């Protein structure tokens, strides 16, 4: 049985829960795969930053044999919900392969959910009303999360997956057997929600397509951001402020084709007084970005790490109200809430720095023979 | 002629509302008690305002001694009572020296010197309230129709 409602929970799917957190992102910029052990060790060091009510990981490059297919990591309350969701998925996708997500028994993790993964190929006929495959996937995720009660899509990208749940992250990592996976980008999150009970779907990372977001902070502009996103067809139904970040990156980077840097400058926009001092063309661009995308400005304290298959970006709010440290060592880029979390897995990085408020740290994949770039 | 900063009261005729509060406050500022009600009840006899509100149809404006550069009153004074203070550049009357000939009243082109109500001596003549931060008329004008300026000469 997958149910274990001994306490009477206020599941955070019904409320937006402000939370404090610890975040880590590790990337190898030449796609070298490394096991999940590293990031578990790193996030475990910041146990203080969580309270055992949520932990999670995102891993890129873990399904090389099935990289053509959309990997859906699903969370079900039970078999009925699974059937309902599968029926819906089959209308739109061919299920190439599916299986239970492998887990091991860990006494700290009180399992309540049925965890399943699917590798999906969009059906030609299902694509007709959509502009692209990605739009179909986005719509599918939105539909399941909003309308199929008891079913939740944790991740939906290719060659990547999100593993999350209620517990300390090291226990969650152990539970999902992440030591057995190898990826080139890993994100991890340790959650400190401020309500009584965590819901598995409310843990981070939050994902859509191959986007994954981990977030420490509170998006005080949530209402405005949600309203902005709704005008582009996104439905924010999960009441976690992190979801708006995932949708906003999807909108700006995937749909509008903006660079991660420009996107970061929309989220943590320069102050008007800084814009006033810019050279005229730049001033015009930034004035326009703020004027038009004011609804996408992320306000309130945050440190976020966003990744997709191509890059990883760390970003602070405009005042830097949450900690974020970056470091590099060879082809490795580390971003974390605390320097100690980096040094525990990379004791002597070549460079360690604290990104300024609103200044993104962007690590992109290096295409041979290009040189690595971090700006 | 004294060089340097000189205080002047600027009259903004277009904003004078004709309430005559400047007159009341001028009298009070030069009274013993400095209290409006007491002045009205007990001290009015000797006092007259040094600022006068002129009124004709829609036009009203308050005017007080201009402290003219070429002050006719100073020239006309037979005793030297009417004199220019060398430090402030303002024109004052020394009541001890005044003999009440009223030549100054005759020659003043603005009609802002008045004789005393109790004696024959010149009683009221704007002294720019130099003991105050702002002249009483300026401070209390409800519409800022009187403004203190400093002119560099």
């Amino acid at each position, binding site marked *: 049985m997958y149910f274990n409602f001994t306490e009477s929970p206020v599941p955070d799917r019904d409320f937006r829960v402000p939370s404090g957190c610890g975040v880590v992102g590790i990337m190898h910029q030449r796609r070298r795969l490394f096991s999940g052990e590293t990031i578990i060790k790193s996030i475990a060091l910041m146990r203080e930053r969580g309270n055992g009510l949520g932990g999670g990981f995102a891993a890129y490059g873990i399904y090389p044999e099935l990289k053509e297919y959309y990997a859906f990591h699903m969370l079900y309350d039970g078999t009925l919900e699974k059937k309902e969701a599968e029926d819906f998925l089959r209308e739109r996708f061919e299920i190439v392969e599916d299986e239970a997500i492998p887990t091991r028994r860990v006494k700290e993790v009180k399992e309540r959910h049925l965890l399943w993964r699917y590798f999906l190929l969009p059906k030609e006929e299902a694509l007709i009303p959509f502009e692209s495959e990605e739009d179909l996937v986005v719509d599918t995720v939105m539909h399941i999360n909003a309308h199929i009660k008891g079913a939740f899509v944790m991740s939906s990208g290719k060659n990547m997956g999100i593993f999350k749940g209620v517990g300390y992250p090291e226990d969650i990592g152990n539970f999902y057997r992440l030591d057995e996976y190898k990826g080139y980008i890993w994100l991890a999150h340790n959650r400190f929600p401020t309500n009584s009970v965590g819901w598995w779907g409310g843990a981070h990372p939050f994902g859509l397509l191959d986007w994954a977001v981990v977030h420490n902070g509170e998006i005080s502009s949530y209402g405005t951001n949600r309203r902005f996103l709704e005008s582009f067809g996104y439905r924010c139904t999960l009441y976690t402020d992190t979801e708006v970040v995932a949708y906003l990156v999807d909108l700006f980077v995937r749909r*509008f084709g903006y660079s991660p840097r420009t996107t970061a400058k929309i989220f943590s926009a320069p102050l008007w007084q800084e814009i006033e001092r810019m050279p005229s063309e730049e001033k015009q661009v930034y004035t326009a970005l703020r004027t038009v995308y004011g*609804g996408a400005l992320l*306000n*309130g304290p945050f440190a976020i790490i966003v990744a997709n298959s191509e890059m990883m970006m760390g970003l602070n709010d405009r005042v830097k109200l949450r900690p974020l440290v970056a470091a590099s060592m060879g082809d490795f880029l580390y971003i974390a809430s605390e320097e100690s979390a980096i040094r525990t897995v990379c004791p002597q990085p070549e460079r360690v720095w604290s990104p300024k408020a609103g200044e993104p740290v962007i690590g992109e994949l290096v295409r041979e023979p290009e040189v690595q770039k971090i*700006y | 002629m004294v060089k340097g900063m000189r205080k002047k009261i600027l009259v903004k005729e277009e904003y004078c509302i004709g309430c005559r*509060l400047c007159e009341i406050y001028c009298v009070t500022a030069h009274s013993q008690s400095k209290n409006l*009600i007491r002045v009205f009840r007990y001290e009015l006899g000797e006092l007259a305002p040094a600022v006068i509100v002129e009124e004709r149809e829609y036009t009203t404006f308050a005017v007080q001694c201009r402290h003219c550069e070429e002050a006719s009153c100073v020239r006309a004074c037979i005793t030297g009572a009417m004199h220019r203070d060398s430090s402030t550049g303002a024109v004052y009357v020394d009541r001890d020296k005044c003999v009440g000939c009223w030549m100054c009243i005759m020659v003043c082109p603005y009609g802002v010197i008045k004789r005393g109500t109790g004696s024959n001596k010149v009683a009221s003549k704007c002294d720019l309230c130099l003991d105050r931060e702002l002249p009483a008329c300026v401070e209390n004008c409800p519409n800022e129709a009187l403004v203190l300026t400093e002119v560099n000469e």
Partner: protein
Amino acid sequence: MAKRRSTADFVLERDDYKCIRCLACVRVCSYGANFYDERENMVFTENRKCVGCHFCEAICPTEAIVVQHNPLAIRWNAHWTSEVVTDIMKQAETGGVLLTSMGNDKPYFTYFDRMVLNASQVTNPSIDPLREPMEIRTFIGKKPLSLELEESEGSVALKTQIAPQLKLEVPIMFSAMSYGSISLNASKSLAKAAQTVGTYFNTGEGGLHKDLKEFGENMIVQCASGRFGVNVDYLNAGAAVEIKIGQGAKPGIGGHLPGEKVTEPISETRMIPVGTDAISPAPHHDIYSIEDLRQLIYAIKEATRYKKPVGVKIAAVHNVAPIASGIVRAGADFVVIDGIRGGTGATPKVTRDNVGIPIELAIAVVDKRLRDEGIRHLASIIVAGGIRKSSDVIKAIALGADAVYIGTAALVALGCHLCQKCYMGKCNWGIATQDPKLVRRLNPEIGARRAANLLRAWALEIKEILGGMGINAIESLRGNRDVLRGVGLQEHELEILGIKPAGEAW
């Protein structure tokens, strides 16, 4: 005795001991209520003439005067209030429409007072506006849904051309008040304050006095049904053009400036002969439908070479949401919605007190409707009608407005005591009058300073509240109804406002 005089609304109490017979009160009362009896050496007041403007009270140097409501107007009755009885008496006497001024003064629900704001505690730090930047700059005008950028190695270039915008340093503007309804000194005060603070004032429908031309960069010119003073130079004189369809104090009604008020300078700005009545028809006679409005919007855009935002002002009525949607689709760059509390220089009392809907509800439904239709970005929403304080501004913006217009609040800053007698043209404060003797009572330097102070004070308060919420830019407040909670509102009202009841978390 059926024929009788109506009772006085006010009683003027004069403390005879304090009265120094300076006669300032006698000199200043334009209604002739105060008079001096030489033989008695006493100042008296004819209470019936007193309108309760408090000018004499303000000017009395010894505080001898207190103006009070007449406490024993008629026998108290919840249904047949003294106002009702007095109105009936006046109408029995005159047989005419009762006129009044300023905004609706009836005790309708003010939703602003039933909404409370949020603040940060623990989970996000509040921001101290004295130490951290706090941004309230606002742009009014049509925005594209998205921007086309050309990005190359570290540089970004803008490909999309953005429609003209008004840049507001505070999200507050002075609403339309014509030269004619208010004095030139009042207009000058607001114009100068707008220039100082970096916002806009609105000429109203009375044309443009030559003294106001220098404030063009901070001016919105209005084009109303009477088209007074409207020509191509006028349209191009300001930073934006506003087509006035209606106003909150008198939805569905035009305007009438009596001929005796059309003095030489008024005749010059309104471009009508001296002494003729200036009548603004109820509708624009070239706009009988939405497609006609579109033609006027584009005619004005053509005339201004597409360099100025063109907006449309309407009164908030039952159908305000679909009407606003139509206006946006007709090409307006901003929509002004004026609620039931909106003020005026003159209006039939029956209209002012009964027609229209509260602005709070109108903002909520208009913003929602435009968002539902996916056209919210095409126009900014400016709201007006009873904005009294900075918290009203914050709540209006949180409900979805881009900026607000203030009229009454601005006039109060200039001295107005809401005696509601603007239509008599005898305003003692020099605001709603053309009498040169009264106009000079408003020194525009003082007026500009006070109006600018009001905007600055509100701006500081807005920043305080934003900081408390942990937000440092007003963009993050706009339409953020999450920061609002309703107190004592019914479920359906909460639904219309799109807010949760107090006590409910996110």
